[in-house]
């Protein structure tokens, strides 16, 4: 790494860009709402409420925003001692990745009516969960088994691994953004979905070529450090998998960006971990039958086993 400070700044400014979407908060009688435990929704009222009205489960209608027909029955409503916080308990655990709509009937206080409101995790949390998912839970190398040729080829030294991982992340983010624009504004309107593979691989090659040319002119020192890896990038399935996945899932711009960032970061992480182990392994006594690639596979298998532990990780 010749210039880590620059990359850090670049990454930070890109993350800052993501803080832009601001969430609208519910107004009126209901001051706040959030998911509680697996089968709970916590509603905070602006003022103390009449316990008899609030704790009647029949007054509540709750459904997931996507399926208004499927009503989720409220089994119990508990009001806290201050009369402001109510906990709605449901018969079954809620799917907290979906936005839920809650409407309360027959509830008025001081001239304000409590109308329906949405309960959802914050969008930023959702974006971060995509990032964490691509980075750890669905790590592209260890749980999706993509990009293994390059992974085994360039994980012998830590320096190489870092360079390769960073180059990958940058190319991946740029090509994912380009692919997203192309997919949304050209391929979808003109019904060119069947050309996905041709167009995406073309865009990726184009990105690599562009990064190569720009880097060569703008920062020759950096080019000397990273130039070699750029060629390897094209023949790698991770880089083409990202546009395909984001087209399949109909991700929006920010989600695509997060997916690409997570995928690149995950690749960097995997390469770095692997190279650390392989540097140590050079000093170890390994049976001749396992020397080289076979032992690398066994180690990767153990990493994959360890990464399995991240499944079910739910921070946001």
């Amino acid at each position, binding site marked *: 790494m010749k210039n880590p400070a620059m990359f850090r700044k670049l990454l930070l400014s890109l993350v800052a860009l993501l803080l832009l979407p601001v969430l609208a908060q519910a107004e009126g009688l209901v001051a706040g709402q959030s998911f509680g435990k697996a089968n709970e929704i916590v509603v905070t009222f602006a003022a103390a409420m009449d316990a008899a009205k609030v704790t009647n489960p029949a007054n509540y209608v709750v459904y997931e925003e996507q399926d208004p027909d499927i009503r989720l029955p409220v089994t119990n409503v508990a009001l806290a001692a201050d009369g402001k916080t109510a906990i709605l308990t449901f018969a079954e655990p809620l799917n907290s990745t979906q936005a839920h709509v809650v409407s309360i009937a027959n509830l008025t206080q001081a001239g304000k009516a409590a109308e329906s409101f949405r309960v959802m995790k914050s969008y930023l949390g959702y974006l971060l969960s995509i990032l964490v998912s691509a980075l750890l839970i669905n790590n592209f190398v*260890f*749980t*999706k*088994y*993509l*990009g*293994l*040729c390059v992974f*085994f080829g360039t994980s012998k030294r830590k320096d190489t691994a870092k360079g390769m991982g960073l180059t990958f992340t940058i190319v991946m983010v740029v090509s994912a953004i380009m692919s997203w624009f192309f997919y949304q504004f050209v391929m979808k309107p003109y019904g060119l979905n*069947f*050309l*996905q*593979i*041709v167009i995406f*691989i*073309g865009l990726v*090659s184009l990105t690599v070529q562009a990064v190569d040319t720009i880097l060569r002119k703008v920062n020759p020192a950096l080019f000397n450090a990273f130039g070699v890896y750029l060629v390897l990038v*094209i*023949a*790698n*399935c991770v*880089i*083409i*998998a990202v546009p*395909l*996945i984001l087209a399949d899932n109909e991700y929006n711009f920010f989600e695509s960006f997060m997916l690409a960032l997570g995928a690149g970061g995950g690749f960097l992480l995997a390469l770095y971990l692997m190279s650390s182990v392989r540097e140590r392994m050079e000093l170890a006594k390994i049976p*001749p*039958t*396992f*020397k080289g*690639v*076979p*032992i*690398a*596979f*066994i180690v*990767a*298998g153990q990493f*994959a*086993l360890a990464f*399995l532990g991240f499944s079910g990780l739910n921070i946001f």
Partner: protein
Amino acid sequence: MATDKSNMQLVVNGILNENPIFRLVLSMCPAVGISTTVMNGFMLGVAVLFVQVFSSCTIALFKNKIHPRIRIPTYTLTIATWVTVIDLVLAAYLPEAYARMGIFIKLIVAFAIITMRLEMFACKESVNASFWDGIGMGLGFMFGMMALGLVRELLGLGTILGYDVLGFKPLLFFVLPFAGFFCVGLMMAFFNYIEIVYKRAKRA
């Protein structure tokens, strides 16, 4: 610059001497990812065989018209076109197998083995030789995938091609997705062992 090998030699070369999975260590992603059963390995092997043969023939046909400086993008686009064809055909006629292989069919476009064969072989040789080389490489890949699938299916589920052979499940571990890494590693070590023993026997 014609090759002096016969068609048969080219095919055998792809299957044994230059086996894409166990010898060249290329295209490892599907070898780890979806080699859980013999059938999966066979299906992806057939898809790769078609793409390899058609791309090799296309490039061999147009090799004199391709400017050397843009040859890599040309290869990529040629492969992408044939992958699209296979992708659409499989989605239309074998939707079940297509769903099982998921994204890997589309990812054939990034398999290093195909680009490598175009660069090393098809852009120098005749259409006929490229055709047989493509067949050999495709079969080599297919047999590699099927061998892996055989080991994993037999050890994990006790079946071959879905038929119950052993009657019990020796090591369920092997059908779990991540076991692909262990399986490939152990099989490579096994082949290395055979080679070492063979060389030792030859010397003695």
